[in-house]
């Protein structure tokens, strides 16, 4: 019954999105207020309908209604309730529905919180948003209906892929989708601005918070995904340059560029055309990512059920959304007025360099991910792996990180590089000390790792110096500094935190990539294994029984110089319904390094494959990501981002006075 309710809600949502795509857009073109006014209630209702459908599907999963095909395929009555619920989006149909819920959720948020937007712009934004929604609703209903019934209903389900039965992965997709889909708002704003023929500082001020919100969730989503890969796959790695990882990373890189270029539009009314293009491309990359994952175009560890018909449908959607918006860009962008000029050495110049490097980095990942497909079409088959990215991606990050420390210290319009660098003397000193200390402390390891530590410290010190200068720490009495700190706009704190978080993440990546020690061997109970100064005593294996799996659990006592450190209990699980084995790594962290181990197959003679890794600094990767997310959230909570209205109206009059196109009431 509730499934039919969900089905009905979806169909209504489809019809409503047709209305919302057309009516407000036409209304805005004709200046018809009644038609414009349709947008807001429609966006809210659309969200309500998709929530209803999502609720109906969730309910079906919770009560294990196996008469629904998707529940039968992806759930099991013996599964813990948490995974019954997360199983809703652990499959193609349900995750697509979640995609749409978030898409309409963002639309509803614009409708609800965009009170101070000019009505025509708001109508057009919501209309574009509805067009995207329409495409995906049609895709869902016609090719991947989550409410398809099977008759007769099977007695029990086929269970969720055991790799997905994990808290880390359970919440990874919603975060990731919120990020992907969040960029749809920037996209809708860009398309609406192209239709209006007007981009100004106020426009940038509205786009920024949505982009920032999307960036925050995408950062969290990617971090969660890599954390899951780290502890679940059992190989001690946290990033594999897998196509599906890459397609989530590309919108992140592009979105980061967009976040920064929008600042230039807001503050200096410059880089407008470029920012519009970035907004379109960022969401386009999200769409391409969805396409790649769901069409079976590339091989990946993350496989959804592959169906060429679905792939074709999304490809048509891509052609309309990306092709259409880029065509609109080609026609309308040349008519946008160019903004203010600036010298290459200036805050704007730094942000342009940031944008250039991030864009090139995105193309590098793009070529690495999709290049094999293009070459395959030409008849050669290659695979692109870590060596390519190490050789091409990392050299691009070096100047980016170097500039990241300098950029925030540069004044707008025109700057003296010498003066700024002299303010970074202390950072330079710290960098040299850090590099010398690293070279002294760590024997072996690549030289580039020492340089990487140096760059990370340079960035960290640069971020802190910028912040301490703003509050005049140590130069005025401490109380005054404190007062300055509380008065500093939150976005300034946010930037410092985000940049510092990046530096910490880089340290983590460097440490785990350069100085990781690993040992893979067959061990028997009673064996002692020595890895990076730690002794692992293998006490034995025992069988344990989980709710829907059986496991072999190893017990290893870890000591260092005779001193007890911890007991590690890695597991090898077999999920009964899908007959699929998974590894559960055991990890001990002290914040500076992880002791990581996994057990593999038995050799049949009492020996077990054992993998032990010593991973220095690896927790810093996720600590850095968390700090970036906190920084972004801090910035998002800035008053200036929330209430742009009073500032806007002043600029607004000034602008319309100068006779720009698209004057609004």
């Amino acid at each position, binding site marked *: 019954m509730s499934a039919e309710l969900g089905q009905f809600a979806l169909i209504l949502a489809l019809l409503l999105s047709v209305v919302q795509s057309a009516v407000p857009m036409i209304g805005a073109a004709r200046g018809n207020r009644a038609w414009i006014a349709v947008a807001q209630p429609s966006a809210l209702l659309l969200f309500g309908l998709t929530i209803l459908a999502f609720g109906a599907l969730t309910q079906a999963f919770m009560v294990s209604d196996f008469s629904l095909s998707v529940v039968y395929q992806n759930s099991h009555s013996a599964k813990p309730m948490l995974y019954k619920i997360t199983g809703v989006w652990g499959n193609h149909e349900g995750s697509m529905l979640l995609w749409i819920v978030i898409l309409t959720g963002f639309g509803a948020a614009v409708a609800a919180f965009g009170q101070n937007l000019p009505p025509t712009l708001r109508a057009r934004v919501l209309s574009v948003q509805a067009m995207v929604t329409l495409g995906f609703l049609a895709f869902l209903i016609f090719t991947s209906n989550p409410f398809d019934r099977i008759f007769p209903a099977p007695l029990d389900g086929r269970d969720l892929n055991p790799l997905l039965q994990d808290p880390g992965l359970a919440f990874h997709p919603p975060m990731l989708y919120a990020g992907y889909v969040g960029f749809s708002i920037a996209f809708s704003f860009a398309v609406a601005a192209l239709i209006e023929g007007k981009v100004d500082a106020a426009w940038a001020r509205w786009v920024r918070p949505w982009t920032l919100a999307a960036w925050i969730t995408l950062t969290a989503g990617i971090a969660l995904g890599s954390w899951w890969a780290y502890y679940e796959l059992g190989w001690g790695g946290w990033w594999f340059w897998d196509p599906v990882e890459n397609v989530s990373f590309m919108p992140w890189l592009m979105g980061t560029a967009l976040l920064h270029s929008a600042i230039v539009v807001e503050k200096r009314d410059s880089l407008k055309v470029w920012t519009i293009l970035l907004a379109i491309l960022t969401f*386009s990359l999200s769409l391409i990512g969805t396409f790649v994952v769901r069409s079976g175009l590339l091989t990946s560890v993350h496989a959804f059920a592959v169906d060429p018909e679905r792939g074709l449908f999304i*490809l048509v959607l891509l052609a309309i959304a990306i092709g259409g918006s880029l065509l609109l860009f080609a026609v309308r962008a040349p008519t946008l007025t160019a903004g203010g000029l600036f010298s290459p050495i200036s805050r704007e110049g730094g942000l342009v360099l940031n944008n250039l490097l991030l864009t090139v980095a995105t193309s590098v990942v793009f070529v690495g991910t999709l290049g094999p497909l293009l070459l395959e*079409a030409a008849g050669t088959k290659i695979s692109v792996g870590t060596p390519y990215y190490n050789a091409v991606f990392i050299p691009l990050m070096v100047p980016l990180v170097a500039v990241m420390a300098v950029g925030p210290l540069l004044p707008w319009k025109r700057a003296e590089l010498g003066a700024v660098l002299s303010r970074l003397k202390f950072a330079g000193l710290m960098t040299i000390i850090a590099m010398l200390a690293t070279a002294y402390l760590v024997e072996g390891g690549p030289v580039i790792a020492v340089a990487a530590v140096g760059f990370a410290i340079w960035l960290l010190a640069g971020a802190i110096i910028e912040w301490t200068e703003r509050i005049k720490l140590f130069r005025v009495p401490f109380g005054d500094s404190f007062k300055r700190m509380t008065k500093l706009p939150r976005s300034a704190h946010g930037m410092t935190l985000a940049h510092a978080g990046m530096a910490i993440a880089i340290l983590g990546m460097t440490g785990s990539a350069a100085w990781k020690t690993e040992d893979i061997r067959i061990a028997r109970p009673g064996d002692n294994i020595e890895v990076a100064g730690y002794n692992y005593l293998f006490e034995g294996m025992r069988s344990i029984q989980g709710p829907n799996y059986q496991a072999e659990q190893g017990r290893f006592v870890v000591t260092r110089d005779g001193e007890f450190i911890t007991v590690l209990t890695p597991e090898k699980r077999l999920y009964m319904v899908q007959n699929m084995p998974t590894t559960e790594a055991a990890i001990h962290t002290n914040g500076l390094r992880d002791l990581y181990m996994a057990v593999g197959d038995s050799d049949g003679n009492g020996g077990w494959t054992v993998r032990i890794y010593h991973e220095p600094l690896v927790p810093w990767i996720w600590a850095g990501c968390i700090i970036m997310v906190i920084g972004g959230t801090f910035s998002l909570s800035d008053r200036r981002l929330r209430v742009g209205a009073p500032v806007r109206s002043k600029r607004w009059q000034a602008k319309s006075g100068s006779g720009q196109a698209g004057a609004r009431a």
Partner: protein
Amino acid sequence: MGRKLIFFLPVLVFLILGGYFFWGLDPERNPADIPSVMIDKEVPVFDLARLDGSGVVGFNNEDLKQGTVTLVNAFASWCLPCLAEHPILTELAKRNGIRLYGINYKDKPEDAARWLREHGNPYARIGADNSGRVSIDWGVYGVPETYIVDGEGRIRYRHIGPLDQAATDEIILPLINELKQ
């Protein structure tokens, strides 16, 4: 005019990309296919000793040039998927009368012999490749892997992973029959 054309660049790039995407959607295309550089080339020069306790002799590259189509299968006793494909290989050898040679990959002879005693030995000859050196020359990624070698000793097809009924019926058997003619 030139300035205006540049604005069309993004959409052009996308159109080209879209064309590739369309091509990539071909359901016949399997992105997981790993082509072998060995296809249609002669098997590498090798000479594998017999596997002790298996009761059959070893083989070398000359043995594969005697005018008979041979199925060469790399296997190991420690490999579970090898056990999974074992009944299919046995059927191919016993029922279809296909000549099946085995390369025993990085295995202990006593383990491999025990495995064959337990599950039956469908191989007419087995070479012991303890070091895995010969398998590398063949381009073996991991066990199990199966090659079809024609009567002149050229590798004509390679299957990665365990054979299943579908691959056997749709690819292996038709190709062998074609080669036999």
